[in-house]
């Protein structure tokens, strides 16, 4: 599903984001990427959804070589990869429903289809009873659910979550983790970037550790160790 071949990312002038990374993630996997601050976790995530282009190496996603993907094709890629961030990135003046519908609308999906998909997604993330609320009327965990719901509208093959629990307390973090696991069980490949020791230890899934832009450990059913 995801294939990094000898990928390096240099930020000008000479900051190393990623350093000769080789990585293969199979369809349906749930991987966690851990590492200290500034070791290239977000860089790896950004390369996945083409927010950044690699300096060297080749990246393939579902057999599609996105190494030199054109700006024109980026939207197509983004409709196949859901993204979630620490700061939710919701539109404050739109309701829960509108925030999720927005992702479909801007992709030119007909209104009838939007009315069909949004409630389904709301059911998955468990927010059916809060559709008319605005983001500021929701808890952090609920806001992150909205963001995850939005990431799911195109039924993506991959979900990339960059520290989705970074702003949440333990209980909310657990909820979000359960939600990600549920999404993974539906067949979506999940790439989770995290700092959270407890989460990694609860997950008992594949863990990749980055240090200075290099993969220093890649363990099936890993535990958080730094």
């Amino acid at each position, binding site marked *: 599903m995801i294939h990094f071949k000898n990928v390096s990312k240099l930020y000008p002038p000479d900051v190393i984001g990623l350093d000769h990374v080789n990585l293969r993630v199979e369809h349906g996997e749930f991987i966690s990427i851990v590492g200290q601050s500034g070791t290239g976790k977000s860089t790896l995530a950004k390369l996945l*959804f083409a927010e950044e282009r690699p300096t060297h190496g080749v990246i393939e996603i579902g057999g599609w070589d996105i190494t030199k993907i054109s*700006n*024109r094709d*980026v*939207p*197509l*890629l*983004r*409709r196949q990869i859901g*993204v979630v961030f620490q700061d939710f*990135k919701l*539109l404050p003046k739109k309701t829960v429903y509108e925030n999720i519908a*927005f*992702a479909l*609308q*801007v*992709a*030119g*999906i*007909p*209104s009838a289809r939007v009315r069909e998909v949004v409630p389904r997604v709301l059911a998955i993330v468990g927010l059916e009873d809060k559709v008319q609320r605005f983001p500021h009327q929701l808890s952090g965990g609920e806001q992150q659910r909205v963001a995850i719901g*939005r*990431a799911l*509208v*195109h039924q993506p093959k991959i979900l990339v979550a960059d520290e989705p629990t970074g702003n949440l307390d333990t209980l909310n973090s657990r909820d979000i983790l359960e939600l990600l696991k549920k999404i993974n069980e539906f067949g979506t490949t999940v790439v989770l970037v995290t700092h959270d020791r407890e989460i990694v230890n609860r997950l008992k899934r594949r863990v990749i550790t980055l240090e200075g832009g290099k993969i220093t450990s890649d363990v099936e059913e890993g535990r958080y160790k730094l």
Partner: protein
Amino acid sequence: MFTSIYRVIKFALQNFWRNIWLSVITISMLVLTLLTVNILLVLNRATDQVIAYVENRIEVNVYFNESADQTKVNEALTYLRTLPEVKDVQEISADNALVLFKEKHAQDPAVLSSVDEIGRNPFGPTLVVKARAAKDFDTIISALDNPRFRDEIRQKDFSDYQSIVGKIRQTTTQIRDGGIVLSIIFFIIALLIIFNTVRVAIYIHREEISIMRLVGASSRFIRAPFLVETILLSLFSVLIVMAIVYPTLALIEPKFSQYFGSGAGGLTSYFEQNGVLIFGAQFIALLFVTMVSTALALRKHLKV
């Protein structure tokens, strides 16, 4: 496809309303630009009318001697009528000239009594010659130097209409040149203002735009609302200018024709007959300028 067009227009209208003051300022500037252009058009039209009015009144008064032979006068009259530069010739007989003179000076007993003192009609016949255009004037004067009746003519009297027309033209040309410079300046300002409006709109919507990009909106879909908003701004501006120009013309038209007549066709009717052309052309020109400006702003500030 239709859904997308509908959504793009909806986003554009939202941009427009949410930054209503920005929209108001932008439209005001565009209106000012167009008004300058329209003032120039009206001025052009009015100048034509004033010149037509003046040329219509260009007269040469040819005064014959008291003792002039009526056959010579008739000869001169016929001759003048054959000239292509002459529009019309009228004869005022000696008796009539005296009556007119007395009417003119009815309030002035001193003048009247001095005429009476002479005891006879001191006036000769007069020919009033109307020229077709101010420039024909010299030809007519020199034509009257014809030896057949030159000696019968006491005086050729004329106002220097040509220099009046020349002055009108010169003044309006200066105003027009100034107006064109002003229009160009306003157009450049309009360009900068549109650029800034789009820049600010992009800044205000940066969050929305970055989210649109994240969830896979095509760059065309992200750009289109800004272009549509620019079309709306241009359209509103032209409509507002039309709403200003027509009533204003209707207001000044009666005063204007009171002085200068509506010989060259009224201002209002000119704008009514050519309205589609005049304002259509202005809309297209404005749209061109604003679209270029928007495209530049999007290119510089919207990296999608």
